[in-house]
């Protein structure tokens, strides 16, 4: 077990974030407000490369100072291309639980590699961070992401009504939870490196 590679799956790698280089790519994704939603606490808007770089640098500062946040880039092995990000923005060590957010802007990449990326993130959370529980919050309009979470064994636990405002109407926030015991039971979820 200890020899299995945590940061590698058949098609992907989980790496550090290069604040400057990755921000140039990610900034282009933020015109999709689905993607930009929640990147900052301000009202959602597209961000320039410098603003995204600053966000990454702040995240890395928090990683160093707080010890309860973890951020990764997801890259396609083929061409070493940035595919998205895995974020653990809050780990509650006292309760062995954490929030997890997977961000992949391109729907085609999400469809093809989303399960693999999520599997790698969950393996890191359960096998390396020793979490008992992982929670992911998704707006109800992100159907692709919801499908991925359900396939990974997550259970929808909470539906907070009218939490997101997009495209002229309200949408609910769905809280999905996955326990380590459930993750282990779903053998298909395991990503072999």
């Amino acid at each position, binding site marked *: 077990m200890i020899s299995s590679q945590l940061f590698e799956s058949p098609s992907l790698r989980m790496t550090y974030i290069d604040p400057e280089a990755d921000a140039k790519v990610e900034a282009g994704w933020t015109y999709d407000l689905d993607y930009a939603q929640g990147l900052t606490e301000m009202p959602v808007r597209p961000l320039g490369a410098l603003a995204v770089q600053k966000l990454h640098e702040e995240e890395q500062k928090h990683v160093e100072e707080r010890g309860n946040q973890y951020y990764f880039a997801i890259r396609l092995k083929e061409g070493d291309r940035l595919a998205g990000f895995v974020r653990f923005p809050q780990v509650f060590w*006292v309760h*062995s639980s954490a929030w997890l957010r997977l961000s992949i802007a391109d729907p085609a990449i999400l469809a093809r590699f989303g399960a693999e990326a999520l599997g790698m993130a969950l393996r890191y959370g359960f096998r390396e961070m020793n979490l*008992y*529980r992982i929670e992911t919050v998704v707006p109800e309009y992100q159907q692709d992401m919801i499908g991925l979470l359900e396939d990974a064994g997550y259970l929808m636990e909470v539906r907070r*009504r009218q939490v997101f405002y997009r495209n002229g109407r*309200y949408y609910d926030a769905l809280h999905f939870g996955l326990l380590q015991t459930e993750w282990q039971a779903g053998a298909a979820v395991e990503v072999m490196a």
Partner: protein
Amino acid sequence: MNDTLFTGSQVRLAVFDPEKDAELWTSWNRDSEYSRLLGDAPAYQWTPKQIKAWMEKEKDVYLFVIRTLADDRAIGMIDLSGFDWVARHAWVGIGLGEREFWGKGYGTDAMRVLLRYAFQELNLNRVNLNVFEYNERAAKSYLKCGFVVEGRTRQAMLRDGRRWDVIFMGILKSEWEAANP
């Protein structure tokens, strides 16, 4: 001065003054049961100076002291935080540090005053909260104020040797208006 907006039937909400009220906060924290009902971080003995610094830093927390109408005694706190001004919602937290006032309607009254402020003045569309499974007294009070249970995150807390669910509740402006014509 017209302060009826912040006055209920048993309590009023007063501005939290970091200079004077940080000491009050530390005195409530001596009661670990209070701390464990209020938060999911380990109960801790913060200094008044740390609390004062936190209050001065957190500009986006709308924090009030709950004072009794009978003798103006400070018995607890209530706050709105985590504002989303696009979707127009925020999180509410409440705690009664003086335990002789538990279970007598003071918290419910304070929450009702706060909801009126949130919906009528701040124009929020929704107020969120969560409550730990073992805090049945608070859960009952929230239901009385019109909050609706929207789900529970399973075994999200580990405390005192076992796991507990965290219950999420919300109230929409439309629901509050229907109950407060």
